[in-house]
Each structure stands twice: as C-alpha cells, then as structure tokens.
C-alpha cells in the first residue's frame, strides 16, 4: 500500500471521527427538551417570549380552537401584577392553575403569607374561569372580599394572595 494512500486514510479517519463528534453535538443542540426558560426582559421585547411559548404548544391550541371552548372576550393569560413574581405570565389553556408555596404548584409563591396549597384557578364547563381558595390560612381576596366559595373571575379583577396580586387579561 503506497505511503500516500495510507496518509490519506489516516487523515480521512481522523476527519470522519471528528465529523461524528460534531454531528453528535449538533444533535444535542437540536435536542432541547425539558424546561424552557424565558427571561423576563424589558417591556419592549415582552412579545417575543410569548411568541416562543405559542410555538412550543401548537397541539393544545389547535385542540382548543376545535373544541370551541374559548369564547370571545375570554381571558387568555394570567398576569402577576404585584409581588416578587411581578411580570410573570401564564397562558390560560384550559388547565388548572395552582398557586401556593408547594414546589409543584403552577405558580410557586415565595411569600410567608401564602399557604403551601393556597388557591387554584380553573375553567368550569362553560369556559368561565373560577378561583377557589383551598383552605388557606390567610385567605384569598378577589377585589376586597375574602373568598369563601369558588367564584368566577371578572377580567382584570385583582386576586390577592399575601403580597402577590394576579389578574386575568385578554
């Protein structure tokens, strides 16, 4: 076997080996899964993360529009307007949203006045969003009244839990 052929094979093999490594790293790049973290930036680029979130969840949205559960004028997102989590939004997609200090809550409140399972927000059969206090110690307030029964949430009405205020928006 000529020297030249062997040199070509030697360099060719190294090239192929590195090509495999590079392809593997490319697969990792395209293999993002698990959790998507969206930095809350200034208001100007606030639209971008939402767009990303929408792209991440096409099946549910399609399912929803097909089911026709979303009525006109229904809220589409839940926004935290006061407290340590100010600015956080959660898209309303027909799922139950739990609030509390428990780490498996949808919105984890870091607040001494919140109970571990404080309240939950869910749509009833008509698609009307309901807030229910889950027997919390310090209570959940809709506007100024302390909740005793599951209550429908009007658009933009502040729900207060400890130092956190959330509201539903279109």
């Amino acid at each position, binding site marked *: *076997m000529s020297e030249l*052929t*062997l*040199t070509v*094979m*030697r*360099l*060719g*093999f*190294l090239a*192929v*080996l*590195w090509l*495999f*490594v590079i*392809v*593997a*790293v490319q*697969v*990792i790049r395209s*293999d*993002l*899964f*698990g*959790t*998507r*973290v*969206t*930095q*809350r930036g200034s208001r100007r680029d606030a639209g971008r*993360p939402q767009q990303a979130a929408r792209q*991440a*969840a096409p*099946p*549910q949205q399609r399912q929803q529009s097909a089911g026709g559960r979303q009525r006109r004028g229904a809220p589409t997102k839940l926004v*935290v307007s006061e407290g*340590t*989590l100010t600015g*956080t*939004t*959660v*898209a309303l*997609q027909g*799922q*139950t949203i739990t609030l509390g200090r428990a780490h498996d*809550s*949808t*919105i*984890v409140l*870091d607040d001494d006045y919140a109970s571990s399972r404080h309240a939950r927000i*869910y749509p*009833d*059969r008509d698609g*009307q969003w*309901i807030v*229910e206090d889950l027997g919390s110690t310090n209570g959940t307030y809709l506007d100024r009244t302390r909740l005793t*029964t*599951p*209550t*429908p949430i009007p658009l933009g009405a502040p729900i207060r839990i400890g130092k956190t205020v959330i509201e539903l928006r279109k």
Partner: protein
Amino acid sequence: MSTNTSTHHTSTIGAIGAPSRRNTELALLVFAVVIPVFAYANVGLAINDEVPTGLMGYGLGLGLLAGVGHLVVRKFAPYADPLMLPLATLLNGLGLVAIWRLDQSELLQSIKQAGTAAPRQLMYTAMGIALFIVVLIFLKDHRVLQRYTYISMVGALFLLLLPLVPGLGQNIYGARIWISVAGFSIQPGEFAKIVLAIFFAGYLMVKRDALALASRRFIGLYLPRGRDLGPILVVWAMSILILVFETDLGTSLLFFGMFVIMLYVATERTSWIVFGLLMSVVGAVGVASFEPHIQQRVDAWLDPMREYTLSRQGVAGHSEQAMQALWAFGSGGTLGTGWGQGHSELIRFAANSDFILATFGEELGLAGVMALLLLYALIVERGVRTALAARDPFGKLLAIGLSGAFALQVFVVAGGVMGLIPLTGMTMPFLAYGGSSVIANWALIGILLRISDTARRPAPAPAPNPDAEMTQVVRP
C-alpha cells in the same frame, strides 16, 4: 406539554416535550458502525496490504448487534436519549478494531497477550448488548430499583468481597480484583459499580434532608453533625479496606468518588466535597506508606524511567509498561502514525486492555485521543442531562451516580496511562479488552436509557379534576 407551566423569580419556565428522536439515533448508529469498519479496513491495508477477510463478519456483527439494540430501544424505550447508544457503539467498535490490530502483532502473540482477543471481545459485546436488552425489557420503570436499596448494599459488599474468598479470588499481577469461575476471569467490581449506585441513590434520597439541613456553619463551610458523618465514614472505611486487601487504587477511588459525587448532588453542600477530597488524600497516602504494591505504583508514576531501567535490567516486579505507554503517546504526535503503523505492542502486558488508550494515542495521535475523550464526555453529558430531566429524586441520583462513576473510571484509567495519576488496574469503558467491563458498561447504558426514557416521555395529560365537575358555581 406546556400545561405544567411554572414560574420562577426572574423567568418563566415552561415544559417542552421532546420528540422521540429514534430516527436520529438510527442515522447516528449507521455512522457509528461505518467508522469502525473504515478503521478495520485501514488496519488491514496498513499491515497486510489487503482488505482483511473478516471485514464483512465484523462489520455485520457490530451492525447486527447495534441494530438489535436500536430496535429494542425503539420498542421499549421510545423516548430515550438518541445519543447514548450510538456513542457506546462507536467506542465499542473502535475498541474491537484496536484489539484486532494488536492481535496481528507477532510480539504480543508470542507472549500470549493477544492473538484471539478480538473474536472473544465481539462475543463479550454480544453478551453486553444482550444484558442491555434484558435491562430495557424487564426494567419497565427504574423506580423499581428503589425497593432493593438495602439488598443492593448487601449485594455490592458481596461482589466487592468476592475476590478475597480463598480459592475463588485470584491475585493477578498484584491486584486481587478478579474471581475465577469455570475458566472465566470476572471482575466483580465492574458490576458492583452499578449495584452500589442503586444503593447510594436509594439511601441518599431518604437521608439527604438530614445530611443537608442539620449542620453548623463554620468559615463558609457547612459542618455536618458528628452522627451524620457515619455513612461517609463507612464508605471511606470500605474503600480503604479494598485498597489494603485488594490493593486496587482504581476500584477504591471509583467507589469513594461516586459516593462523594452523589452526596454532593443530593445535599448541595460543598463541604462534602472538601471532606471527601481530604479523606481520600489521607487514605491514599496512609495506605501507600505501608502497602508495597501501592508504593511501587506511586514510585513508577513519579519516575517511570527508573522503573523502565530496572525492568530492563531484569529486576523482578518492575514493568516497562508505563514508560512504553508514554513513548507511544509521544511517537503518535498530533495526527498519529495511522492505524496499524505504530508500535504500541512494545507495552507488552495488558497492551490491549488497561493500556489500550496508548495504542489510540500512537496511531490516531492527539487529535484522535481528544475525539475519544469527547465521545466519553458526551456520554457523561447525556447522563447528567438525564439526571437534570428526571422527575423523581431517585432517578436523578441514580443517573448522576452512574454517569459520575463512568466519568471517574475514564479519568482514573486515562490519567493512569498518561501519567497524570498513579496507574491503576482498571479498564477503559467499551474500548478495552475485558468481558466484565464491556458487559457491565452496556448494562449501565441500559439503565441510563431507561431513566432518560422516563424523563423525556411527554407528561400524560392531567387527569380531569373531579372537584371541578362536582362544584356548582352560584352566579350572582
């Protein structure tokens, strides 16, 4: 998918489900089989001037094994990580080529160090993949292993102590880490690695709060309470005993290191790492001061040239391996001599097992060794990623423990061969000749794939809330 959206202080976190990625795995797997076939043809052309006759056999054999592995993953773990199987297949295939290449050496044949190793290694690979398949089929959920926490402890101790049983254990070249059953030499330590990871994961999952929270703060370090030091002391004592009675630095370092890694991950306390490093240094130095075998290894590490000269002069108990390995790396240079054109057979003893990295260093050069180390790093990275994605603490700890042990083993062997740390009798996972190592590491990959399948599987749709149906809302 994004139904379990949760929040954080500065960011919004939403879950993304991963697609199954099985076709990516298949494509990579084909690539991972083609590379060793290329290398195999290259070795034949360089040594014998012809394409080796066994090319079809090895290529088909490796391809078949990888294909069966892939089909089983497709059926039983459809959401598992797409990279681990191709990476392991590639390393295993390259190992087979290097072993076959050393089989061709007349020097190694004459001292009975090689000759028929490659077919045997292919058989071990088949057994390894068989165990991999068994793990994927029968281990439907890794959390089942949690039930066997304390049985695992007993099992691991049993496996570790087996080589000390008179008549069963074999003292091969100074280290007592083999047992001999029906003509086969088995290294139980390789299997103990996995079993011990199961025990540590189960144990730390239960105890981590006590270990993490009950502590005093002292100069920026959390000092654990005296009684919480118990487990780390027990594991430390055990690894010291292994060091003393089996005179194997590698196994000892592997187990203690794995425990410290898992302890750190479970408790998030840096102080455990500080303690672990201190204890392993104290233990290693202490034992080295009175154990002649370990002492000799340290001397050979500090001055390999003296060891080489003594061996050349015919002084018993010395070996020129370490120096020859360094020369192999040196003569390889940046791009290597090319497959089949080095002289790594001069390492003689264990050239195709513990020292196989030197063959790669000489024939593929720095560029090739770097690529190999990156392949290992990618396997470890996928393991850690699996741990991050796993939803249950046991799975997290197990994945971290297994990938940590894998990484430590690569470090201990590569470091030993390259002269970074004293040499230990361990094998490079997948590359080196040795049945126990190949089989145990395939099982390890199987467990990691099972955890990653569970972790990446899209969460089932949340069960409809029964209360929401029952509650009658009174509208004003």
